[in-house]
């Protein structure tokens, strides 16, 4: 079928302000939006710039705003969009560097701010630390996060203030807060109790709706809020 793809373009070396270019191409219903962008770059305009790597929804490179909603371009198939008119724009709330590439630094700075690493300074046993199947299941959902930024850049609170730590960082904290082996939950809860922490979330659910890993993000944020209030991790 013929598809019309309208793409946000901005090259700071040439353009004073962003504009849109429209391309027409033939595509199969099962094509990924990423396939179309590759085709446009290969045959129409080599200057079109975007990030991508694994092309199947695991590396998290190609988060984009497609027809107004955040997707990974490699996980959005033409048939799933139910239209042959596609608009592709950079994710919102982060500075556009060129075309569909945004500056991820603020996003990763928030990630780093929540101590997103396992902490347990007790002597290690000769074999594995034991953890029950139930204890492991407690934080399973948030281990899936691939740091694509779909969630954080779909959040209107983050659009309003990029000081808000954002859903992805809270998810990263949640993964450790609820891990029975980790010992630094209290420190992370203190960090997220900040004015730009977890209470900025007004449960808009945009994050949950667009997460390509189908993580129950809003629920996880709620669990972190509850843990701060109750001081309990169940």
């Amino acid at each position: 079928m013929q598809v019309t793809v309208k793409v946000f373009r901005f090259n700071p070396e040439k353009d004073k302000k962003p504009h849109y270019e429209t391309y027409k191409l033939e595509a199969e219903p099962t094509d990924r939006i990423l396939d179309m962008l590759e085709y446009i770059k290969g045959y129409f305009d080599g200057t079109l710039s975007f990030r991508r790597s694994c092309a199947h929804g695991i590396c998290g490179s190609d988060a984009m705003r497609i027809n107004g909603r955040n997707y990974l371009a490699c996980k959005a198939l033409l048939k799933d969009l139910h239209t042959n008119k596609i608009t592709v724009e950079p994710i919102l709330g982060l500075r556009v560097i060129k075309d569909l590439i945004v500056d991820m630094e603020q996003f990763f700075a928030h990630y780093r701010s929540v101590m997103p690493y396992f902490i347990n300074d007790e002597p290690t046993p000769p074999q594995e630390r034991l953890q029950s199947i139930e204890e492991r299941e407690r934080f399973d959902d948030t281990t899936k996060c691939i740091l694509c930024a779909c969630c954080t850049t779909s959040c209107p609170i983050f659009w309003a203030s990029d000081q808000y730590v954002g859903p992805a960082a809270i998810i990263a904290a949640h993964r450790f807060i609820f891990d029975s082996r980790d010992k630094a939950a209290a420190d992370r809860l203190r960090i997220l109790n900040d004015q730009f922490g977890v209470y900025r979330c007004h449960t808009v659910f945009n994050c949950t709706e667009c997460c390509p890993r189908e993580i129950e993000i809003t629920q996880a944020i709620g669990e972190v809020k509850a843990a701060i209030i109750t001081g309990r991790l169940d």
Partner: protein
Amino acid sequence: MKKHQFDVIVIGAGGAGLMAALYASKTANTAVISKLYPTRSHTGTAQGGVGAALGNEEEDHWEWHTFDSVKGSDYLGDQDAIEFMCYEAVQAVYELEHYGLPFSRTSEGKIAQRPFGGHTNNVTGKPVRRACYAADRTGHMILQTLYQQCLKNNVNFFDEFQVVDLLVVNGAAAGVVAIELGTSELHVFHAKSVILATGGHGRVWDITSNAYAYTGDGIAISMRRGVPMEDMEFFQFHPTGIYKLGILITEGVRGEGGVLINGKGERFMERYAPRVKDLASRDVISRAMYLEIKAGNGINGQNYLYLDVRPETVNKYAALDGRKRLDGTPYTMTGEEIIAKLPDIVDFARTYLGVDPVAQPMPVQPTAHYTMGGIPTNRFGEAVIDEKNTVMPGLYAAGEVACVSVHGANRLGTNSLLDLIVFGKHAGLRAAEFALGADFQPLPADPTEFTRAQFDAIRNAQGNEKILEVSSKMKAIMMDCVGMFRTGEGMQSALETVRELRERYKHIPLHDQGKIFNTEMINLWELGNLLEIAEVVTVSALARQESRGAHARDDYPKRDDVNWLKHTLSWVKPNGEIVLGYKPVVITKYQPMERVY
């Protein structure tokens, strides 16, 4: 141009690179340079598990793991290195757990393990549960955990820097040149130790599970500086890629009881591997699938087969095989259990195939997956650059870019993640130790000269060739003629085509002449790497007149231990000529035997 100085630099931020950085940074000033943000690295896509004989689920021994790996390698793996890896595996997996890796758990709270292709109880010959897993995202969890630990330990990162040249001075590594992707500025990294951990080059082939980033950069930059490559003819095709797209469907699906079915509804692996059937080695299964398709037994006569993990199918064949649970009761699976154990696979099948694997079989075909060959190293990750295994001072390689060789002619599933953590760690330790006792080599007078020459050629190319046409022709001919089955005639024609394409490559014009994220320029440079590697692969393969592991020739269908039980070394000379040499395989206690599954 900007200059930086570190004791140790690590190129690539996948499992091997991050493990190396974690260990090197304990004692040496270390930086990681990566063309991707570290968490985007291809390690993250590994699914099924990391092999280690923990014996958490049933009796197992690292010596069994060793033998299985030797046999899997079709006796081309170096047995001292394989022993080292399989012995170290147990501690390495515990170490990952201590770093917080969220492994799935047994009912006793230990690390859960599942069966995988080629891993057996050496007494009974039956599959053994050796793959330590975190659902079906083990690689993702390894990558995340190691990146997190690197952040905790304040490792220096240069993210989105493309390394484009290896600096060699006085026969030793002196650093690298990198392009900062955001600005196109050149950076010179002066170092005492350089660890290459850049992964493989599966993008040479058409149907592949490999990321766009998998363009053999580490191999290309070191080949251009005179470092030989080892066993480049050996490239693994994984049996179960999603039809047409090549996206990986883990062997763990078959570990959990899934079976391959042909167009006649037969479980055809019974005929090719009577003992372990769908859990034979990858080369064996991929070839069987190819032969089934060639015989007209594809689904509806087409070039794909079914991977069936519907509960009724799993339970039927588990009963026929007499498969038991650990408590001795018959092995069964429900739809819910399949979704719980293989959530990402269910998601991939639904997204890309429109198939619900609990209710329908998945269309699959073999997919280019893993680079067995690469930069020759010893088991400490030191690059060894001739037939006598002479060490090149300061140069290290680990992970898929390296050839230790622990995978020989065919890698066993789960041994790639194992390779990353064991050899990443030892390369990091050894590189730091070397750096602490060595002086910096002087930098060349003009360290970016070669880089500028390469990129000037790319920027100024004249002609009307197209990058996608040149790359798709390379992928197609390599798939057809230097893929799962090879002939002298086919490979000769592939070689001619690749050489033509290397000429056409010079006439692909660069439209983007800017400096900010010039991805077109980088993609062109990467294609140059792939073309050069495709030629080395083909020349190495053409010379090897036997069939062994992943290298299967119709015109030489048998393994030939008399003439070919040896590693290929390939050098690219400055005039472009490829010269081959050979070195012996290290055999400790496993004499080559016929390989039957």
